[in-house]
């Protein structure tokens, strides 16, 4: 009998045997994941019938998938491709473990290293079988989905391109992960290390750049990374998030490198192009997928493969079973984990930098010891290796120091003036003037201004750019500063530093963009930045908020598209301008003491005259008049569009204060009641007690404080017979006074008197707050002003001396740039007139009262909530 001799080819056998056994498990996981996330969901989507509506939103039939889509490879959700990514990464790691864990066992190494196959062929054979399984387990389900698409919809270039994209992209991610896992296993002694180091290295770029982001945010004054850049002049009040460092450098991450694009080609519905609400195409026209990242990562995988093979060839067999044998990885892993803990402490702990750093290093040391002990499992060896920790600590501290010292001048570096094409900048003054933000009069007769001061974009004139540049330079020259405690009384108010958000975006002539974001600024610096209000482009922006032509144009669009208002329609401007220029507008004057509410029944021409005068006066103001007025405001003018049936349109206030226009005939959730028809002839001026005013509450309105410098406006008011209401002599019976600093310690939310959290513009109201007990009946139950209650809840200095009260009234302001110091005063009006809260600048407060307040506050402590105020 002839012997059955083998004709073995060890390499071929290695590959073939690798295509079976435990390697099938991760491959099946991959395949199952893709069949579920791609093939099954595609079938569900493609067999689903979508309702079809006519213009009146009546169902008129169904739309088949063929009519709707060009293809469906994944559901139109970001999550589907994200899940697929998770499956791919997990399966690839498992494949790496399955194919190469043999290298960490003495028993298997004895066998495999003594076999008649070279190490490189053994490595290649084991590797290639795993790679084949991974790619096949991705490609086959996607090909099935491709065929499903062919059956349901038919072929298209986009379908083929998308299928190739996903096969290539997921295969590249899978192979990169698998290759790194294989290389790591080749260089360590145990599977535990293999998994630990693989996980760490795969996420190393993300972790490292997250650490740098922490340091950048903490130390680098002006850091733009990870910040939202808001624009106040944009119709949609859009904000652009500047990438975080981890996102910016995600191209270095083997897993996250194409995360944003991964969901873009899941399905293609041509009708959705240009629709920013649906994420598939992000409103962009179809563009072919970019295969380059996948190809680059495949090349990277090939490089890692060769490195892994080299390590495998040189590997000392005796390390298997022993932990901690790879000194390089042993150093990297505790470093990256420890460094992460260190930077988290620096960034997050609300303590001084030094204390944060020390705590961070202690935690780093604990992590270092834990990992070292786990890796070495020998106390003597551990002690012997402890000398490395100071090196780790020194490197971490050195990196932190680089950021703390301004990142090689990054903090103070500005572009060359002559290279600047345009600048966007955050103004810090009265944002209502140049944004579409509006005041709202609430049901409690309170006035609020839900503003968010973003940047004014596109300063292009040489003068404007230079002025902003100089202000920026001045800001930068002050260097990184620490916020002053919100209730901290300091000797020198010029040293007060305020949390805020000041942003600059330079667009350079070479097309580059430089962004900076400052979260703290000196109060005086902020006051200096009020200069921005008076730049050429800011004035143009303010003028736009009084631009009738703009309103007419917007109105035309509305009237022409009642049933199909364009998606990008500028609702904010339309509402703002509508309050001034709409056919029916309610014009009201509030006296400075809030005691009277004067309805001005103006003709359209009279209203235009008043608005024009107002515009001229506002544009003619200087910084002193607008932000540091010498005298209290005389009155306030309030414009609000009467939307009840006006021009066939109605508005519904939505959460952010903007309004949604409903076309005539369209369903509206709430129909405001028709106003009662006035009886008898309409008087030009109707005066009422403010408590009886029925204002069109909850509608955003345009509210302007009128000061003595606004001569044009005052002149028109005089001509209308309203002059007497510009002079107030309130009957005050009591004043409660608190320093701004003390008031700030009453609660943690200190912005109630401010327009927003960027500006220090005190802009309170003329409407008094009524004590519930002062009136009877339910009509007043809703009139509790939510603001100013802190005076009821905390001890404050008070006085009732009549002459002093009049002095205080004369010193008080309702609109003033506070620099976060000075006094809040709540006046109690006589005859149950309610309360009125005003601001008194430090230098306007009579010395005797100031001293009394200081004495009172030094002897009446407050359970302080001292801390740092936070900007948005």
């Amino acid at each position: 009998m002839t012997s059955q001799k083998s004709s073995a080819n060890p390499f071929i056998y290695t590959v073939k045997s690798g295509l079976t056994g435990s390697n099938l498990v991760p491959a099946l996981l991959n395949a199952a994941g893709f069949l579920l996330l791609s093939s099954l969901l595609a079938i569900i989507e493609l067999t689903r019938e979508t309702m079809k509506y006519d213009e009146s939103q009546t169902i008129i039939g169904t739309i088949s998938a063929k009519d709707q889509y060009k293809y469906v490879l994944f559901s139109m959700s970001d999550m589907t491709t994200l899940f697929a990514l998770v499956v791919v990464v997990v399966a690839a790691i498992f494949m790496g473990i399955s194919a190469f864990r043999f290298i960490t066992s003495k028993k298997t190494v004895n066998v495999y290293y003594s076999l008649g196959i070279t190490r490189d062929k053994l490595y290649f054979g084991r590797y290639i079988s795993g790679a084949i399984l991974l790619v096949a387990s991705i490609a086959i389900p996607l090909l099935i989905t491709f065929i499903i698409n062919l059956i349901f919809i038919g072929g298209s270039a986009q379908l083929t391109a998308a299928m190739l994209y996903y096969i290539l992209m997921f295969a590249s991610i899978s192979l990169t992960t698998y290759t790194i896992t294989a290389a790591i296993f080749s260089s360590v002694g145990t599977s535990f290390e293999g998994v630990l180091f693989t996980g760490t290295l795969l996420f190393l770029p993300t972790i490292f750049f997250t650490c740098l982001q922490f340091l950048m945010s903490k130390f680098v004054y002006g850091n733009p990374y990870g910040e939202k850049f808001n624009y106040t002049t944009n119709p949609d009040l859009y904000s652009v998030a500047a990438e975080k460092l981890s996102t910016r450098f995600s191209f270095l991450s083997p897993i996250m490198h194409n995360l944003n694009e991964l969901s873009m080609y899941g399905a293609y519905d041509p009708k959705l192009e240009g629709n920013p609400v649906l994420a598939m195409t992000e409103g962009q026209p179809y563009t072919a997928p970019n295969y380059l990242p996948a190809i680059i990562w495949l090349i990277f995988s090939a490089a890692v493969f060769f490195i892994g093979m080299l390590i495998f060839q040189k590997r000392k067999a005796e390390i298997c079973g022993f932990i901690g044998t790879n000194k390089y990885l042993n150093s990297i892993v505790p470093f990256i984990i420890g460094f992460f803990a260190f930077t988290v402490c620096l960034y997050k702990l609300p303590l001084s930098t030094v204390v944060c750093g020390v705590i961070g290093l202690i935690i780093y040391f604990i992590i270092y010891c834990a990992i070292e002990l786990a890796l070495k499992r020998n106390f003597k060896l551990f002690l012997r290796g402890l000398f490395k920790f100071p090196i780790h600590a020194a490197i971490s501290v050195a990196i932190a120091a680089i950021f703390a010292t301004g990142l090689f001048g990054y903090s103070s570096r500005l572009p060359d003036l002559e290279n600047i094409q345009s600048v966007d900048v955050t103004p810090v003054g009265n944002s209502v003037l140049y944004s579409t933000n509006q005041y709202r009069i609430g049901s409690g007769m309170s006035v609020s201004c839900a503003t968010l001061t973003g940047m004014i974009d596109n300063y292009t004139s040489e003068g404007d750019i230079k002025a902003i540049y100089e202000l920026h330079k001045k800001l930068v020259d002050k260097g990184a500063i620490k916020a002053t405690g919100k209730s901290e009384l300091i000797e020198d108010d010029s040293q007060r530093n305020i949390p805020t958000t000041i942003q600059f975006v330079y667009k350079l002539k070479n097309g580059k963009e430089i962004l900076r974001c400052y979260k703290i600024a000196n109060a005086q610096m902020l006051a200096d930045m009020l200069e921005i209000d008076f730049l050429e482009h800011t004035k143009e922006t303010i003028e736009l908020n009084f631009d009738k032509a703009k309103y007419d144009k917007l109105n035309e669009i509305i009237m022409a598209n009642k049933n199909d208002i364009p998606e990008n329609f500028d609702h904010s401007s339309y509402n703002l301008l509508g309050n001034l220029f709409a056919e029916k507008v309610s014009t009201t004057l509030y006296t400075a003491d809030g005691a009277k509410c004067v309805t001005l029944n103006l003709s359209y021409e009279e209203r235009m005259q008043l608005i024009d005068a107002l515009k001229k006066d506002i544009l003619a103001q200087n910084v002193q008049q607008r932000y540091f007025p010498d005298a209290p405001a005389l009155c306030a003018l309030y414009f609000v569009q009467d939307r009840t049936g006006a021009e066939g349109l109605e508005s519904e206030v939505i959460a952010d204060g903007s309004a949604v226009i409903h076309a005539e005939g369209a369903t509206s959730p709430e129909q405001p009641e028709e106003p009662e028809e006035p009886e008898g002839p309409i008087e030009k001026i109707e005066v009422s007690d403010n408590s009886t005013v029925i204002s069109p509450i909850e509608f955003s309105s345009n509210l302007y404080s009128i000061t003595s410098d606004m001569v044009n406006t005052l002149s028109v008011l005089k001509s209308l017979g309203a002059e007497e209401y510009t002079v107030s002599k309130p009957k005050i019976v009591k004043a409660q006074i608190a320093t701004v600093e003390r008031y700030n310690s009453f609660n943690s939310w200190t912005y109630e008197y401010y327009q927003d959290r960027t500006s220090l513009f005190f802009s309170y109201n003329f409407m008094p707050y009524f004590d519930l007990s002062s009136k009877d009946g339910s009509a007043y139950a809703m009139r509790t002003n939510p603001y100013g209650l802190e005076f009821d809840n905390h001890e404050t200095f008070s006085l009732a001396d009549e002459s002093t009260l009049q002095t205080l009234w004369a010193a008080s302001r309702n609109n003033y740039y506070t620099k976060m110091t000075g006094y809040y005063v709540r006046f109690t009006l006589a005859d149950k007139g309610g309360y009125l809260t005003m601001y008194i600048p430090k230098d306007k407060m009579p010395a005797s009262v100031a001293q009394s307040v200081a004495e009172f506050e030094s002897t009446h402590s407050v359970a302080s909530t001292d801390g740092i105020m936070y900007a948005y």
Partner: protein
Amino acid sequence: MIEVCSVTKKFGDFTAIQDLSLSVPKGAIYGLVGYNGAGKTTLLKTVSGVYKPEGGEVKINGENIFDNAKQKAKMFYVPDDLYFQPYASMDKMAHFYNGYYANFDMEEFKKLASVFGLNTTKRINGFSKGMQRQAEIVLAMSTNPEIILLDESFDGLDPQKRAIIKNLLNEYMAEREVSIIISSHNLHELEDLCDHVGLINGKNIALDGSVADLSKDKAKFRLLFDHPVTKEDFVDVKLHTFTEDGRLITIFADGNVDEVKTKLEAMKPLLLERRNLTLEEIFLDEMEGLDYDFSKIFS
């Protein structure tokens, strides 16, 4: 032909073997003896190409063995710590080795398995330790290697199975010109098997040579006299040991065996019987005066 040339193998700071040299010619069974931890396994793993030495080299048929697929394909290393694939039967392992060894003989595999009475379809992890060793030796011999490295392969085997393996190895040697190194911490296990022996002593080979050479000029005889004799009566013979068991005397003498025999015959014994030297006796003789704890290998 196995040549170990000045091999040094270190594990970190620890030197397991240092500047060690030995050679095993074709057709030789080399017994590598040493107490546990003496370096036998390290040496075998280095010879098999599992370990890469820090110094020196191991040559098989004149070629460095490390990562040498051609030479390794002719070699089978049976480690002390056996490996079988999870849930594998002998058949499955045979398929595995069949994939890597061009000379794997499936027929011989079946035949050898039946010699030991092993069921090739049963899971090996259900086998006893001794059966697993037998299975591995069956697999090893089925690959028809030119070099077999056996690390403590007799450990755990009962005398009968040990005898079978010895016979198999001897038969295998008779058929082919192979080189075998078999290590053991127990000298008695290698008795009647090795024609070459080496004693590894910590980092180096303390004694190395063929059994014939080592036995040369050493003679062991059993004698019976009809009259009382004492050690002093053997004046012409260079006695190494003299043992009396009643009237039966056993001597171990140095010198030419024939010359010693002639001298003993002149003493007119009733019985003169030449006996083979045991490895123990050879080692004891060779290592006399040296600091070596033989109790560890003579147990």
